[in-house]
């Protein structure tokens, strides 16, 4: 794919050669600086002007990931950044593009052999690849409409406007073909290949003379990891799984969150509003480099989609120490760790400025962390549980939710004895759920509740619930002490009981459509326009075209203004 890269030093030289010339109103450079979905370069209407300044520049991220899988996913590890190749990529790649609109008054008066030049004012700008947009109205349809996205991807080669090898972008006006914007200019898309902060200037040159020059447009291009926060924490190496503690209860791990740089510090952008979203990850694969993979593929996609929908608050991803070596191994141990991770979440939230509107949301097994945090008294603007992998009965104690085939299972039921019923019977934080009854994950979750609990390992340990034993001694961990001998430890930690012994008598919160109790509102992801079908991680695995409504819904739940799905 041919593209243009602006290389700052050369551009500076070009500007020097061209000589200084007062900016002209003949050319205006438009970007969606304020994120309202519109590009407005001139005052005079109700639409606010997009007016980047030195202190509040147009800011966008580098296209550093590798969105090249036919499945619509991303390659990992990143072998080459999308911005460095001519390979046609996927819809996912389009999320790393933004619009650049060049308006030229009386375009027809310029000769065909006049040159359109884009250059950095001070030679400090980042490298940019420039593509001709297929939509002549400079809209964001490439992100919103599948057909428009396909057209943009298909047209890349034909509509490219220059060569990567060029030292700066100069092209004959006549070679650009039919103008856009009803004859009033040209529409481009760009992605950023290198970081930098400078002002972009567009000029029209003819035979060494500068015929017109735009006002400089300050632009700040930087790595996406500087746009949002990440935290992580490690499970202490000296704390073993709880079933390995036989004669004494397992120690309470001292989990401490820390910022997770991954090579970049967070830099609060000038646009930050008073909202902060804390997003608790679900059950991630554990292993070398996999947290970084999830950050790039899930976290960054979530950030980008919220950003494109108009969100300008802070976003922090909260990572906790899951266990998932492969497939579905480690589910219950991860649940146990989730309970233990909640104090760290509370601690992190307590560090956020008290004046902020804090929204905490969790996905899937992350909802265990959030549930425990609510139990511990988390007080924030709202708590949103997305397809929560925690029993519905934790929030709604009505018998109607009890599954007929689970009604008589002998298991701890009430929260007092280590069961789930009414675990979060009330909360000062309004709690909401997004559910999907068709989510295939809950099929497995239900199997785990029925057949993996109480947990045991042949020849090793065995958790049990002895309903005939005195109260307080019913939850037990049996372990071998000899060939034909065993002993037991009484399990008193409700987290250990819930994770390894207690079977859910209800569907998971994320599959239950009838929630009431301490859940204030519910949102159905199976229905149009969300159409999650059987998907569990749809929000960041499907294309942006299919998730626009989902991200608008997130913002709507948080009472945060969002951009029209048509913009």
């Amino acid at each position, binding site marked *: 794919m041919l593209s243009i890269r602006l290389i700052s030093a050369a551009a500076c030289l070009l500007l020097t050669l061209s000589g200084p010339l007062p900016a002209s109103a003949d050319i205006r450079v438009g970007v969606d600086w304020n994120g*309202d*979905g*519109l590009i407005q370069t001139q005052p005079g209407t*109700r*639409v*606010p002007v997009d007016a980047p300044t030195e202190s509040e520049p147009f800011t966008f991220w580098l296209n550093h990931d590798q969105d090249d899988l036919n499945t619509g996913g991303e390659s990992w590890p990143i072998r080459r950044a999308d911005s460095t190749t001519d390979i046609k990529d996927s819809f996912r790649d389009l999320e790393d593009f933004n619009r650049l609109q060049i308006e030229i008054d009386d375009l027809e008066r310029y000769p065909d052999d006049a040159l359109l030049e884009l250059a950095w004012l001070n030679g400090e700008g980042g490298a940019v690849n420039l593509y001709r947009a297929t939509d002549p109205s400079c809209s964001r349809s490439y992100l919103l409409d599948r057909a428009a996205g396909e057209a943009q991807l298909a047209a890349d080669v034909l509509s490219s406007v220059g060569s990567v090898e060029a030292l700066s972008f100069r092209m004959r006006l006549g070679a650009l073909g039919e103008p856009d914007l009803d004859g009033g200019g040209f529409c481009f898309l760009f992605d950023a290949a290198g970081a930098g902060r400078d002002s972009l200037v567009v000029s029209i040159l003819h035979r060494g003379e500068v015929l017109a020059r735009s006002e400089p447009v300050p632009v700040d291009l930087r790595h996406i990891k500087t746009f949002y926060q990440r935290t992580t924490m490690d499970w202490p190496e000296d704390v073993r799984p709880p079933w390995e503690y036989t004669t004494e209860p397992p120690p309470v791990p001292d989990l401490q969150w820390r910022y997770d740089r991954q090579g970049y510090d967070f830099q609060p952008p000038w646009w930050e509003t008073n*909202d902060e979203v804390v997003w608790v990850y679900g059950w991630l694969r554990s292993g070398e480099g996999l947290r970084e993979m999830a950050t790039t593929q899930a976290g960054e996609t979530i950030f980008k989609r919220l950003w494109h929908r*108009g969100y300008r608050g802070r976003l922090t991803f909260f990572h906790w120490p899951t266990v998932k070596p492969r497939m579905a191994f480690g589910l219950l141990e991860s649940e146990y760790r989730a309970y233990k991770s909640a104090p760290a979440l509370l601690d992190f939230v307590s560090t956020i400025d008290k004046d902020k*509107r804090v929204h905490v949301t969790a996905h899937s097994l992350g909802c265990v962390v959030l549930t425990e945090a609510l139990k511990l008294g988390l007080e924030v*603007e709202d708590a949103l549980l997305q397809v929560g992998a925690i029993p519905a009965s934790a929030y709604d104690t*009505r018998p*109607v939710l009890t*599954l*007929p*085939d*689970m009604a008589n299972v002998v298991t701890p039921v009430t929260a007092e004895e280590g069961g789930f019923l009414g675990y979060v019977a009330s909360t*000062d934080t309004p709690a909401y759920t997004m*559910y999907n*009854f*068709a*989510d295939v994950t*809950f*099929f497995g979750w*239900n*199997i785990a509740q*029925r*057949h993996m609990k109480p947990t045991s390992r042949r020849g090793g340990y065995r958790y049990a619930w002895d309903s005939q034993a005195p109260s307080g001694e019913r939850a037990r961990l049996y372990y071998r002490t000899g060939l034909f001998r065993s002993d037991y430890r009484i399990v008193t930690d409700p987290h250990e009981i819930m994770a390894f012994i207690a079977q859910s008598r209800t*569907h998971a919160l994320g*599959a*239950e*459509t*009838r*929630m*009431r109790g301490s*859940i204030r*509102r*519910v*949102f*159905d992801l*199976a229905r149009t326009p969300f159409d999650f079908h059987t998907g569990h991680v749809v929000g960041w695995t499907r294309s942006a075209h299919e998730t626009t409504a989902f991200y*608008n819904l997130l*913002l*709507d739940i*948080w*009472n*945060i*203004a*969002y*951009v*029209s*799905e*048509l*913009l």
Partner: protein
Amino acid sequence: MSANCSDRVRLCALLCLLLVLGGCVTRAQQHASKSDISWFARTLDGNPFSEIDPEEFPDTAREALDTRIEFHGIVRSEEGNPLRGARVTASVFDHLVDPFEFPYFSFTVRPPVFTDDQGRFRFTRERGAGMYVQVEVPGWAPVTSPRNLYVYAESLGRTENLPTRPTAPEVFVFEQRPPEAQLRRIHTGALRLEDDGVPLEASLRTLAPHGVEPGTGEAIISCYRTLEDAAPNARFDWWCELTIPGGGFQPFRINMDQAPESGYVESGRLEMTTDDPRWDDRADRDLIVQFADGKYGFVRVSMRMDGDFFVAFDGVWNPTGSTWLD
């Protein structure tokens, strides 16, 4: 090779295990949610059960759930040709609302069925007080009502002439809709309200995320919140007033298969007071809108009184002037 074989055996064993275990697993169903029931109650035209003896009603309702439902339908073009592949969704009123309060009946949405080569579909194994049937044919417009509520329980006022026999199916007629007659989307996104009581003029059929000049709006909305005395996270009184200049609106009712030609009010107000047991800092209302030029639309008005303080309109409008909004 042997490793592959071994992997396959393992995979087969795992799949078999899942299938066996799966048989023991209760799958979740799409029951009506709290929001659905609230929506359903709002869209009913009054309380259709108001004349039933309240003492006996719980038992009556419970018995009504056991009514056998048989439904036969056929989907055709205006010329009488069967339409294959039409999507039919049935919501069966098969359980009671818990707690038992208006509208008393709740439903479960069945997986969609699709019409066969003869344009036929049927539901024969259902039990419930009634069923809501909706037919959709992509790219086609309804000529007869594409969705209806069928009451099967005698005690609740059984619908006359229920299509319980294959020889007398309910007929759903559709016509092909040219592109220029396709319904158009309304989606304003969040329209921020400037301040309490300050009206915002909005355009619904063209995009104007910052509103339009006074005197040119297709809708005027103002909202007011009594926040002065309210502690953080405390309830507050609020209201929103909507006007459709030169046109009007009315609440969407579940038995409306197309926009009514009369019954519109130009202006109306939603009030939420702190003593309302259903108090919320947000509300959604489904409305049928008649624009000043006589065209019709369906919009959901979302009012968000906390946080960014905005309203949003989402729906469709019919550019032909027809009253159909499906």
